[in-house]
């Protein structure tokens, strides 16, 4: 198959799984039309491709929560893809556990990421009794930091441009690039930490609704307790990672 050099709306003539901004490598040019990753395993860039697919998927899941009406089917399919990658990386031994540390990370990156979550958390927060009590302060404190960082202006505004699910699919949203760059250099473990600030109760609206229907605060606090005592991750480091990812996925998948 001849490689075309002209760029078009499709971005690549051959799909090598590269995300934007990453340099092409010669080694992967022999990919045939099948798209089977097995063919690429020998290529040195395979893990890079897989990593970028993982990042792209996580960003997509974040965007799901920014939409007015998250599409559950799409979320589930993306989450399954993330699980697949993560399982494979665990088998390869490339899935690294990162201790929750903020030292090495630029505050800019952290705030942008949290900003996305804060916005979706705010949207998902129902005007119910006591829902945000224990948790709103964390979210609000993160939010209050943002206006004082002028460097955030451009990514912040472009992130919030993506507010409609009915967008033209021909072009890739600009804001995704912005978000993507912040995630580009992260290790998988660090990405999990993005979601650690957000209590899963924001997203388990079914439980919230059930609690409310069941009767005021008593039912509601039962639900929150149930969520707070989420099953502990099984022992073993690799299993622990899987458990953490499940927790992440649970947050991301619930509407």
């Amino acid at each position: 198959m001849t490689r075309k050099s002209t760029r078009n709306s499709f971005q690549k003539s051959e799909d090598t799984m590269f995300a934007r901004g990453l340099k092409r490598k010669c080694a992967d040019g022999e990919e045939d039309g099948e798209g089977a990753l097995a063919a690429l395993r020998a290529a040195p860039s395979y893990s890079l491709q897989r990593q970028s697919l993982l990042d792209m998927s996580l960003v997509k899941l974040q965007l799901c929560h920014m939409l007015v009406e998250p599409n559950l089917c799409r979320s589930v399919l993306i989450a399954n893809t993330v699980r697949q990658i993560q399982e494979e990386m665990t088998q390869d031994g490339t899935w690294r556990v990162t201790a929750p540390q903020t030292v090495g990370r630029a505050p800019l990156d952290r705030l942008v990421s949290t900003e996305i979550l804060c916005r979706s958390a705010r949207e998902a927060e129902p005007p119910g009794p006591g829902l945000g009590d224990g948790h709103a302060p964390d979210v609000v404190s993160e939010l209050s930091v943002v206006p004082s960082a002028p460097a955030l202006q451009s990514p912040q505004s472009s992130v919030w441009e993506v507010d409609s699910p009915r967008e033209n699919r021909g072009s890739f949203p600009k804001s995704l690039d912005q978000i993507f760059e912040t995630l580009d250099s992260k290790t998988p473990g660090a990405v999990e930490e993005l979601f650690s600030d957000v209590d899963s109760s924001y997203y388990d609206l079914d439980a919230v609704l059930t609690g409310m229907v069941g009767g005021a605060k008593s039912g509601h606090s039962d639900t929150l307790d149930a969520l707070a005592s989420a099953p502990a991750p099984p022992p073993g480091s690799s299993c622990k990672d899987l458990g953490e990812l499940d927790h992440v996925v649970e947050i991301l998948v619930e509407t």
Partner: protein
Amino acid sequence: MGEDTDTRKINHSFLRDHSYVTEADIISTVEFNHTGELLATGDKGGRVVIFQREPESKNAPHSQGEYDVYSTFQSHEPEFDYLKSLEIEEKINKIKWLPQQNAAHSLLSTNDKTIKLWKITERDKRPEGYNLKDEEGKLKDLSTVTSLQVPVLKPMDLMVEVSPRRVFANGHTYHINSISVNSDCETYMSADDLRINLWHLAITDRSFNIVDIKPANMEDLTEVITASEFHPHHCNLFVYSSSKGSLRLCDMRAAALCDKHSKLFEEPEDPSNRSFFSEIISSVSDVKFSHSGRYMLTRDYLTVKVWDLNMEARPVETYQVHDYLRSKLCSLYENDCIFDKFECAWNGSDSVIMTGAYNNFFRMFDRNTKRDVTLEASRESSKPRAVLKPRRVCVGGKRRRDDISVDSLDFTKKILHTAWHPAENIIAIAATNNLYIFQDKVNSEMH
């Protein structure tokens, strides 16, 4: 295949503005009624437009059963769910006609949350000659009334009246993706991502849950319901498809909650084609029973498959819709096109199947001759009454003159919704905000 196009008439009456695409005008569903006389479309703005086929007349030989606008009404309005702080879209996801039982027509239309039953009636006569009222409806002065008369029905201009007869609300937590009327003509089902409910057409405050795949722990959710349909003849059987590419045939006589399937239709994965996108492209976007009831047609991202109800192990036929996209899956994942949900359709005799693709292309497969054709629905490429020219997508190698290369396909022009007349070779194609109706002038075979 020789085809007539009827685009100009339809587009003129359907489009508000020819120069740009209004978001609300994007057609989201197309459905013929059981005789094919009526064609209903739903759009993103919550409107339903019904077209009626003109009877063929000798006086106007050109209008051989063309479709004209019959009625337009607002079916759903945007709503706001205050508990979840989420907007509920007014977009019509599906329309299904009820079998006609009297002079009126009825259809079900649904958005993400609420199903409505609409009754469409015609009025072409009105009574004249009342004793107590005059022509304008004002009460007469009784002293002027000297004799009694019997009111007479006089013809008037046809008026089509549409009224909502039932509203089936609050049945679904998740987004409704399908509705299907049962062959018993008394019940119907509605399916969302995780549950399927059975309703009685006359009862709106109660529905029965017949399928529930919601896990106790949402963490464990890995599969959702993507489409469902009742069997055309057996009122106890229905099928639902999943995001993992499986079909489940359920029998309502077996249990009240049909979580256990009677039959599971699943094709084993091809290990040579395995990639991170395998599951996504295996997700079934539409399932349709054949008119005979013997087969099911499914659409996943790259193929359409025919399944025999008697064989669960694999489909009996598989047709490639656009296999040239297989090497582009990552880019299609990036721009979200890989999540597009295409529909599929049988023709009246179950011998030809049809489905949409990108670049305003749609594909037809003849099951008997194993021939297929790619056609395009666009005003540029087809004038009214012109014969549609088959299109070809080239993937490198020899390129013929009118071929389109894979890289110049327009992925914003997708044909997701198509419908086939129940008896004749007439098809309705929704291309974004345009509706195309193609008729086969001559009963010719596909070439």
